[in-house]
């Protein structure tokens, strides 16, 4: 795997570890599945996921 991909994957892993999925993947999904509807901005996306992570389920262990 080229170095740039390794870095990208590492950054993706680090973000997902703190509950943030990939924003680019979200945008790509919105473009394909809901092209006519507005998508969350990067900031809105971040806020939405942060609130979700500490919602009503046990997302971590002891």
């Amino acid at each position, binding site marked *: 795997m080229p170095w740039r991909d390794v870095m990208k994957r590492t950054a993706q*892993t*680090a973000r997902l570890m703190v509950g943030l999925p990939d924003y680019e993947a979200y945008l790509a999904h919105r473009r394909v599945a809901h092209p006519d509807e507005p998508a969350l901005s990067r900031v809105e996306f971040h806020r939405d996921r942060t609130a979700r992570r500490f919602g*009503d*389920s046990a997302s971590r262990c*002891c």
Partner: protein
Amino acid sequence: MATRAEGGSGLSWLLWAIVAALGAIALGVIALSRGETINALWLVVAAICVHLIGYRVYGLFIARRVLRIDPARPTPAVRRNDGLDFVPTNRIVLFGHHFAAIAGAGPLVGPVLAAQMGYLPGTLWILAGVVFAGAVQDLIVLFVSTRRDGRSLGEIIRSEMGDVPGVIAMVGILAIMIILLAVLALIIVKALADSPWGTFTVFATMPVAIVMGLYGRYLRPGRVAEVSAIGFAGLLAAILVGGEVAASPIWAPAFTFSGEALALMLIGYGFVASVLPVWLLLAPRDYLSTFLKIGTILGLAIGIFIVRPELQMPAVTRFVDGSGPVFAGNLFPFLFITIACGAVSGFHSLVASGTTPKMIESEAHIPLIGYGAMLMESFVAVMAMVAASVLDPAVYFALNSPVALIGANAADAAAAVSSWGFAITPAALDEVARQVGETSILSRTGGAPTLAVGMAQILSDVIGGPGMMAFWYHFAILFEALFILTTVDAGTRVARFMIQDLAGTVSPRMRDTSNWTGNLAATALAVGGWGWFLYQGVTDPLGGINTLWPLFGIANQMLAAIALTLCTIVLFKMKRERFAWVTMVPLAWLLVCTLTAGWQKIFHADPRIGFLAHASRYSDVLGRGEVLAPAKGQGQMRQVIFNDYVNAALCALFIAVVLAMLVYGLRAIAAARRSQTPTAMETADAVA
């Protein structure tokens, strides 16, 4: 790795033969070394080989033959992709996410406590437990949840077993959560009591996190890397300033607190932190604690490989007879209760039915993520065992024995520990304390300080030499305190939601989370619950850990028993009962261990083990109008007795929950056997 090995080519056969031979040699060295120290590397190599072979042979067997995972079947992430909760995710990325979610303080603390019996019994249980119980549970729960749209353990129990078992399981999970939070909070209190350096550093993380939170909210939203870099710089500064604070005659007293005072502060903190907006304190600290956790685990692994320390702890100590000072009770069942996380942890069944199943790209990835991530956690547990065992055993016992057994000064402690056969001088104990920048290392129970001294010894050998030991010690304390505080904060929120959900089954109005009265009442109940056990632990004559850690271990293993009961039912419902032994064998073992341990914690005649015996000992003394140390006055005597009855009742509740689930489980299995066709309630493939 595994996918490449599938082909069974000549090269992969050769590689697996080398792994098997290396594992056999390492285990042989461990088994044959008696009366001499061995290198920690043998333990680590044996663990890695057992993990690799366990994955290749047993993990893939369960996934392919027992569960018959179907790589072609669309997963919830694919069917319901929304870019938010349901996201098909690269398997390596998801492995990292899942591992970060399951690895916490548990696998670090349990092995440290279990080291009182020597490194061998604990290590063998970690390795056998993970391969045949822990990783099996994680893998099958992840599979079951993935087949059901990523629903949670509680929801799956309700749909596969019925509403009553669903509510029973929810009560059990809530009780476990409360005990978990209490014991984690107790670990912080024990580590920070009378330690101005540690206390200042941990206090400083709060303003650091709030600065990060404001920066990430208003200045540069969503920039995780920038926010984390700022926070990390803040943490390093806090450790360095903490050293100055501890050395200052003016500031050191201002940050020196007793255990009781810290416990009350932590309870207040828990309440405030769990009602603040998450972006202000919780989320930014979550970044720090997550990245620090992963970084420190990697650093420790690298450190062990570079330093290759000798294990000073004997392979087996005389405390296998149950007379040990760290926790009371015989090797069976208490070793298997003390090491939960790292061998088998019921809590993982909540994580494996949480966010991970919603992000699995293909069922082919389930073994790597479910079984593999648990093996990784087991590796962390083995490293914790190494860190505890590289210490001089006398230092280990001085750190982990309660004041009641070794006294409060170095001379008494050295005499007591030497009388157990681990010779040490008072000067040597003082020297260790001086090296790590503390006034005393005596009775710093709870595992975290022991791990920190062990890590400081290893890491200072790599970077900085003996002069850096104090820095590394407080770095390790900070790293543990950070993620424990994050768990306390996030866990209090989860417990609050559980309380509201449970109350909602009685009065639907309680479920409304926009109702602030309900929110505050549920939060107060959650904090009051763990706070009560925390305070009891801090004032416990035997040091608290001795009481609370076994309760936590029993609770955690019982949750695993509930999860494995569910997995067994699902196997019967899928008409895969030919392979039901895969879950029934670890289930039977967990039931034997937890029911025996639960029974002994209530009824054992030794007051160090049995709650009722302890209560009657205090009652007798109270009846004669006398007072038994460390209780001061009759009020505290009555409090100790009351605590014993509450602990006994809690133990009885755990036993009742697991037995009830077993009965419901047997009924569900009988129903599944009567049916001619599979009855598992999987989400249909056609659902879009």
